[in-house]
């Protein structure tokens, strides 16, 4: 330390400053091999990606200037990849600076920096968890994080059918699309109609499945009930059959003109045929019924497991106090189930909020509504799908995606906080 003070700058600081060019700081710390390696990586990185950065950032800012040469969307994608690569580069740059500082500090303290073999061994040992995580995280970056960022970026452009390559370019428009959702009459009314039904759908469909699942689990759990195994197997069947198959089967059964519900069931009860597929309200009733049918077995199975884990002495104590069956249920069974199953119950709600399959496969989100891009039973996700795949309103779809994501995250965060179930363990 005293030496360093004489010189005015510690070895550590100097090494850090020198490694502004990666490797030089390591040379200064007399770690020649490591320095060479760092320098080589830096040269390869800059040399290899210079073009990507150049093109990428130009494209990201301008989204292209000339038709038909430039394709705005490809340029946007390249730009985002450049940002990701830059991010990874900056991370390594930071590690390089830190390495120079750490080893410089060792020199200051009169220690000799580790040799190449030693530090290589250190690195592999410390990096073991990174080695474990990296395949998963890399895949996550390219198949989930990058596409999500890309979708989000599209929300701030005007990319749609009229701004598509090769004939046209897209442009950055800031928050314009978001503003339009709330100001253009037709968009606003569609948005609020869809949002309203999405919320009702989520609450009613999930609550029904949860209530039915818990109720049936308690019913089957009765001690003196026979054939328990049989009932449990039967009640799990709707979960065992692939969901899309069931939905499509129901779509046939609910068909207005030839479906079994109208032709057989209601007919035999003397009830007139109900327009399940052409009247939005009846479609909603059918959807809620089907989702309860599909959703309860999962809750049923988990509740059965929880019921078996309730300590028996709780009930014995209650029996001593002369509690009625209802009191036992209210004060012991239900609280136990609800606290144990909080995370699973929450996932039911987020699942139904994004339950694209049932809405789209059952009746295509329909019946169709005049002058609207959304059908009478479309929820946010199925509307976004239609905007993307059918009417090429990419920017609008992307903006809605952002709103949807914030909505889901907000609710999930509030809930997770309240249940504490996801606390660090």
């Amino acid at each position, binding site marked *: 330390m005293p030496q360093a003070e004489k010189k005015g700058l510690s070895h550590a600081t100097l090494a850090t400053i020198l490694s502004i060019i990666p490797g030089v700081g390591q040379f200064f710390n007399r770690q020649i091999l490591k320095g060479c390696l760092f320098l080589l990586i830096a040269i390869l990185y800059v040399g290899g990606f210079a073009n990507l950065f150049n093109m990428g950032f130009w494209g990201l800012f301008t989204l292209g200037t000339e038709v038909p040469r430039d394709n705005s969307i490809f340029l946007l994608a390249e730009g985002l990849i450049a940002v990701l690569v830059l991010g990874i580069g900056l991370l390594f740059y930071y590690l390089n600076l830190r390495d120079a500082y750490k080893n410089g500090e060792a020199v200051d303290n009169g220690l000799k920096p580790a040799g190449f073999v030693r530090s290589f061994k250190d690195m592999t040992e410390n990096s073991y968890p990174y080695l474990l995580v990296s395949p998963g995280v890399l895949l996550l970056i390219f198949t989930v994080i990058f596409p999500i960022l890309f979708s989000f970026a599209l929300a701030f452009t005007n990319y749609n059918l009229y701004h598509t390559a090769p004939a046209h370019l897209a442009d950055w428009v800031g928050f314009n699309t978001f503003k339009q959702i709330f100001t253009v009459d037709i968009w606003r009314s569609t948005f609020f109609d869809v949002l309203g039904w999405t919320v009702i759908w989520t609450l009613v469909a999930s609550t029904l499945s949860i209530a039915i699942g818990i109720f049936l689990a308690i019913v089957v759990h009765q001690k003196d009930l026979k054939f328990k195994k049989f009932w449990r197997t039967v009640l*799990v069947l709707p979960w065992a059959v692939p969901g899309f198959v069931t939905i499509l089967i129901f779509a046939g059964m609910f068909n207005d003109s030839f479906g079994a519900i109208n032709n057989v069931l209601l007919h035999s009860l003397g009830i007139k045929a109900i327009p399940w597929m052409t009247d939005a309200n009846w479609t909603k009733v059918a959807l809620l019924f089907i989702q309860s049918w599909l959703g309860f077995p999962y809750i049923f199975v988990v509740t059965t497991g929880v019921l078996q884990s309730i300590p028996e002495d709780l009930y014995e104590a209650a029996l001593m106090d002369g509690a009625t069956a209802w009191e036992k249920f209210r004060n012991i069974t239900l609280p136990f189930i609800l606290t144990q199953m909080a995370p699973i119950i929450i996932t039911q709600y987020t699942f139904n909020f994004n339950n694209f399959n049932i809405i789209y496969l059952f009746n295509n989100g329909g019946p169709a509504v005049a002058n609207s891009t959304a059908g009478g039973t479309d929820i946010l996700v199925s509307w976004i799908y239609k905007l993307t795949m059918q009417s090429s309103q990419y920017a609008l779809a992307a903006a809605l995606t952002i709103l949807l994501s914030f909505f889901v995250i907000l609710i999930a965060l509030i809930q997770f906080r309240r249940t504490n179930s996801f606390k660090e363990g």
Partner: protein
Amino acid sequence: MHSIKRRKHTRLGFTYLLLGLVSLSIFYPLAWTIGASFNRGNSLVSTTLIPKNPTLAHYQALTKTSGTFYYFQWFLNSLKISLFTMVLSVILVSLTAYAFSRFRFVGRKNGLTLFLLLQMIPQFSALIALFVMAQMLNLVNSHFLLILIYVGGQIPMNTYLMKGYLDSIPRSLDESALIDGASNTRIFLQILMPLAKPMLAVVAMNGFTGPLGDFALSSVILRDPKAYTLPIGLYNLISDKMGASYTTFAAGAILISIPVAIVFILLQKNFVTGLTEGGTKG
């Protein structure tokens, strides 16, 4: 005494009645589909639960390919995609969860928060980008791309489940193995993974059924009828021709549902343990 007994009888009576009705509502659609698959003709107008002149024609039709109809190809595609997604996600999820559960490293906390956040954002958000990306990379109709997307989407939630489960396995087990000179990799493969079997079953099941239940993402990437998976293929079968090939659909639906349901019920015990132990406590 008598009144207690009578009350017990009415309670049980109502219970059996209720369970009977629920079972009926479960069996009816399934039986109806089985019936439809043996009925003659293409439409459902004349379909009855018990066919008057049962026929295997629709099952035979499944083996043929015509125009946009490739049932067995779809079946194989779905099987392939589900299997690869399952294997890859089990491997990647258990590696990642092991690191998060047993090691303390720089970036761990941030990583966990990121996973929690990604678990909440539906993969649906990426739909538009995947649509554009597949075209850009010339990977429209690529099963490989689809598998990678599925596995990526499976990682955040399943890692959380698996990490929670591994956390509940006492650390003293690995520590004593470490003292005996076992390497990290050996501890992972020979001690932790066998103990985590119930949760591995859950991750495997999610990996297998996830692709089988997906319509949105696969319909964005797969455009050629030969490359379809079962959900897209069967959906088009009944939506394109407006009920015309409903009986063929019924046969196809039965053929996929029965094996899946049997495997599901056989393996049920394994993943139910994982769900109730890991899922409920997070």
